[in-house]
């Protein structure tokens, strides 16, 4: 177990393209960090730099108290779970789990003990002598986790490990990963583009955009106080409404803001509300419905309870104190 420190990390590819720039994160021992952002934001590159699968162009990476910039992946004392699991197809589950230990010349008895223990934790005991292709997606995912666990590494690195699973299994595995990490208390870095996965798993979130950090914070901090319009639009589902200040003239205290953010759940119907929304479309989710409309040329989404007859236009008010204000040019938050 160890802390991980990224100090002004940058990645420039040989063609001169910059993938990651000026990323600094201090990860405490045992912390679960989620790197989240849209595809191409550099989150996987960042993870691969920590793993040693990509060279580090700028800055330093420390695992524990060692600078690992020039170390081979094997020497960094990390374990990685890949998106496609990367299980060795010609080896049985047992051999898959044992391979990393065998390469490190772990005594046979110790390998057997650790494999048995991992199999117990992940409930993959019955499949130990099967080949990966004879396993279901969820079982393969468990084996991939098992391969990381047996090594007892300083850190786990997860590269979108759930994105190949179906929606239902993803929710189950998400809980299992969280539970496992709580029990083992191993420092973890988890990459995902799914903001829900990020919110539910993370001790702290790192929101990335265009190779740079937009915000670092606990899921609730990021949700309650998004640092920029990008974070505001990315975290939370349905996404926060971001409307131009000019579109709604009657909001007090917003004169100096360029963009106003209101979460769909913070808007409620009110007969004398300041926002007049023309309804364009309705999505029924069962317990609630998402009502999409427009006001002053801006799109707006409201979360409303189901089962109420909707008029053609809605007058809306926001919950006091729920407005998010952002600067016009930079899109940064104004407090």
């Amino acid at each position, binding site marked *: 177990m160890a802390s991980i420190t990224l100090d002004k990390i940058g990645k420039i590819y*040989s063609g001169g393209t910059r993938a990651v720039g000026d990323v600094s994160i201090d990860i405490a021992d045992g912390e679960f960090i989620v790197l989240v952002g849209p595809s191409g934001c550099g989150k996987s590159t960042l993870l691969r730099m920590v*793993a*040693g*699968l990509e060279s580090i162009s700028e800055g330093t990476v420390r695992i524990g108290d060692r600078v690992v910039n020039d170390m*081979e*992946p*094997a020497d960094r004392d*990390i*374990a*990685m779970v*890949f*998106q*496609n699991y*990367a299980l*060795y*197809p*010609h080896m049985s589950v047992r051999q898959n789990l044992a*391979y*990393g230990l065998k*390469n*490190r010349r772990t005594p046979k008895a110790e390998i057997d003990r650790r494999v048995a223990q991992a199999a117990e934790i992940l409930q993959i005991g019955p499949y130990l002598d099967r*080949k990966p292709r004879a396993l279901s997606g969820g079982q393969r995912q468990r084996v991939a986790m098992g*391969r990381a666990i047996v*090594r007892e590494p300083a850190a786990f690195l997860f590269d979108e490990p759930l994105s190949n699973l179906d929606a239902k299994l993803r929710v189950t595995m998400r809980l299992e990963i969280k539970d496992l990490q709580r029990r083992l208390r191993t420092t973890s870095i988890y990459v995902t583009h799914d903001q829900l996965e990020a919110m539910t798993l993370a001790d702290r979130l790192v929101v990335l955009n265009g190779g740079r950090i937009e915000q670092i914070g606990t899921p609730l901090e990021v949700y309650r106080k998004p640092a920029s319009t990008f974070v505001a639009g990315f975290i939370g589902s349905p996404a926060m409404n971001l409307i131009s200040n000019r579109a709604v003239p009657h909001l007090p205290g917003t004169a100096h803001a360029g963009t106003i953010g209101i979460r769909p759940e913070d808007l409620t119907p009110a007969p004398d509300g300041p926002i007049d929304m023309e309804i364009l479309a309705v999505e029924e989710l069962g317990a609630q419905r998402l009502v999409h409309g427009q006001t002053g040329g801006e799109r707006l989404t409201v979360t409303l309870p189901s089962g109420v007859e909707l008029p053609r236009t809605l007058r809306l008010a926001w919950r006091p104190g729920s407005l998010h204000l952002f600067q016009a040019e930079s899109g940064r938050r104004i407090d």
Partner: protein
Amino acid sequence: MKRTIFRNQLLPWLLLAPQLAITFVFFLWPAAQAIRQSFLRQDAFGINTTFVGLSNFKALWTSPEYLNSLQVTAVFAVSVTILSMGFSLLLAVAVDRMIRSTSVYTTLLVWPYAVAPAVAGILWWFIFNPTIGVMPYVLATVGYDWNHISSKTDAMILVVIASAWKQISYNFLFFVAGLQSIPASLREAAAIDGAGPVRRFFDITLPLLSPTTFFLLVVNIVYAMFDTFAVIDATTEGGPAQATNIMVYKVYFDGFVGQNMGSSAAQSVVLMLIVIALTVIQFRWVEKKVAY
């Protein structure tokens, strides 16, 4: 797969006819002729033909020349296969590690495959020609007196190199495709699992390449045994002293030069059986045993 039902019984046969005709005229007919002839003996002028049963075959197993040819063929086929596959795997691994200009490199490496075997033979014959060749000159500077006209070993080396060279392109293409179908994440996972480059190659890459390797093994043995006639003919003509007289060349030589049709036919029947055996192995094994 979609099944088409023909109402007319004739139409499907008509559609198959061209292919069946070609197969019959160029493959089945000559094969049947060879089998028939292998049981016959003709006099020197082709006037009298007598049925001799298996005596052509029996004669083969007692002929020191034929047994020598078997041995030469084995040495030749194994050497060509090992050399061409080993070398092309090396090249393929190198290309797989390249980031840029991979396609240029690959295209260039494929060229030899377009060269006709006879031309390849002539090419290497010139390069290794004891009088005017480049290689003997180079070898002479390190004290080796190259002469494939008199030395059995040199002759064998020459035909092995010339034959393997042509096959390298083909093997290379399959190996590159095989390597590229192995997900990079497997090798990355192995790197994280503490396996160095050599270990990764033997533990991960090679086992996952085994279907390709086995396929190429059979293809290369078949190539070395049956498709190298032109190379031999253009370089050593089976000599010196039968040292490079592989089975397929001996069939030609005994039949068309020596005019011993019965023995030549018997030899080609033996070759036919070997091809059938290799094909069976190919289908039985490649499909089932080597898959992971």
